[in-house]
């Protein structure tokens, strides 16, 4: 009877270190992004993406596409986590929709931090700047969790996936949704 707690401690110790490494790496990435965005002299100039009326709309649509894929992520991720017998294609769909989604956000974040920087002039902009750092930090943490998936606590992937999803949707709401609501929905 006394062996139970004894058995539980090693189990926790096994996953504590890899998870902490992943978590701290993510925190480091978030901090680095925030510091770079704040300290880098914003150029207010960046590459235009063809086919859009302005860089803002290009960014808004890229983010919107990423959010749509993030919903796919949420659905497939929930199935994979809950059901051991989830079809194999679902894991593939989860991986590829996630890869495409994160790659779609790359031009957006580069424009954000290179051309605009960490803004503090309104509540929306502060929230957006902080969320951007959290999003990439959480994404890095989740990827590192996957690297040593068997060494992670069971809740690590769903929780980090949830943080990535929620922060992306909030990023979208504080930028693309705001742009569409104030300037209209067009390309």
């Amino acid at each position: 009877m006394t062996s139970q707690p004894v058995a539980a401690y090693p189990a926790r110790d096994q996953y504590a270190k890899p998870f902490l490494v992943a978590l701290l790496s993510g925190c480091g990435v978030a901090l680095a992004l925030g510091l770079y965005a704040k300290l880098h002299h914003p150029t207010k100039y960046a590459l235009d993406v063809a086919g859009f009326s302005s860089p803002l709309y290009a960014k808004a649509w890229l983010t919107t596409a990423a959010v749509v894929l993030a919903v796919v992520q949420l659905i497939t991720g929930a199935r994979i986590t809950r059901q051991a017998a989830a079809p194999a294609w679902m894991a593939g769909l989860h991986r590829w929709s996630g890869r495409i989604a994160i790659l779609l956000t790359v031009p957006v974040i580069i424009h954000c931090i290179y051309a605009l920087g960490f803004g503090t002039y309104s509540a929306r902009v502060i929230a957006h700047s902080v969320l951007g750092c959290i999003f990439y930090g959480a994404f890095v943490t989740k990827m590192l969790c996957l690297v040593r998936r068997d060494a992670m606590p069971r809740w690590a992937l769903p929780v980090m996936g949830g943080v990535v999803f929620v922060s992306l949707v909030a990023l979208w709401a504080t930028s693309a949704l705001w742009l569409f609501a104030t300037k209209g929905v067009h390309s």
Partner: protein
Amino acid sequence: MTRLGPLITLGSVLVLAVVFLLANTQAGKPVSTVASATATPATTAPATTSAPLHALYAGRSSGDQVTVAIAINGHKVAADLNAGQASEVSLQGSVNGSKFTLTSSNGPRLTGSISGQDMFGTVTGFLGQSFPFSAAQAVVQAVYTGRSSGNQVTLAVATDGDKAAAYICNGKTIEAWLQGSVNGNQVSLTGSKGANLTGSLSGLDMFGTVTASAGLSFPFSAELSPRPAGVYQARIAVNGLATRIGWAVLPDGTQLGVAVAGTTKYPAPLLDLNNDSFTLDGASFTAAPVAGKDTVVSP
């Protein structure tokens, strides 16, 4: 067990980020000290590149050496650089896509590009210096004045950002007040009894059709005009009769106006453009310049 898939994903994100960062570094010149984040639109941006842009931008250089005011009208662009102490320079130039280049007779050049509600660029050769600048779109007050093609009516249109107010008259019996909006390069105003004006901005000009009352339509042209050109209005009581007088004043001082008291219309008295005053029946009154956002047609 260590899995490489997530690391490959992370690595490709990093590579793509570096590629974009380098591409941006190559494409852009460092500009502006204005701290700003995410989307930062101003007020009335025509967000389409297909329609010509008509907008005023105001800003300053990154080292705060000069203030910059840039007016874009279709393919024409004019700018004013002001460093205080009478060092002011006017520049003229053209817009090509989102890029523009301006020159002045005595040296300074200005190049830049429009990015939505912002513009970024470089001033060279101003007081022996060169520096980057940024500017943001500003609400612009402007006056366009002109005549119908057969000179049947004179008109003055005041714009204020996306709002517009106008007065048309022939100085005797035809007159109409119009209220409306500017959307990109399209101007659309309406008044009572079927009066309306539709026009489009092209360069520094406005072309279109104006209808004074049902069946009385004329094509017209008008141009961006400095003061004293404008729309002027006075609401006074003459012999106990509520009277509304409107004037359309052209930049050379030519003015046409009509006074309306009930159903009676007569030529407006001469407006003294030095102090906007006029005399009617021996009494002195003052008229007011009408801005684009003023209400001139009762809803």
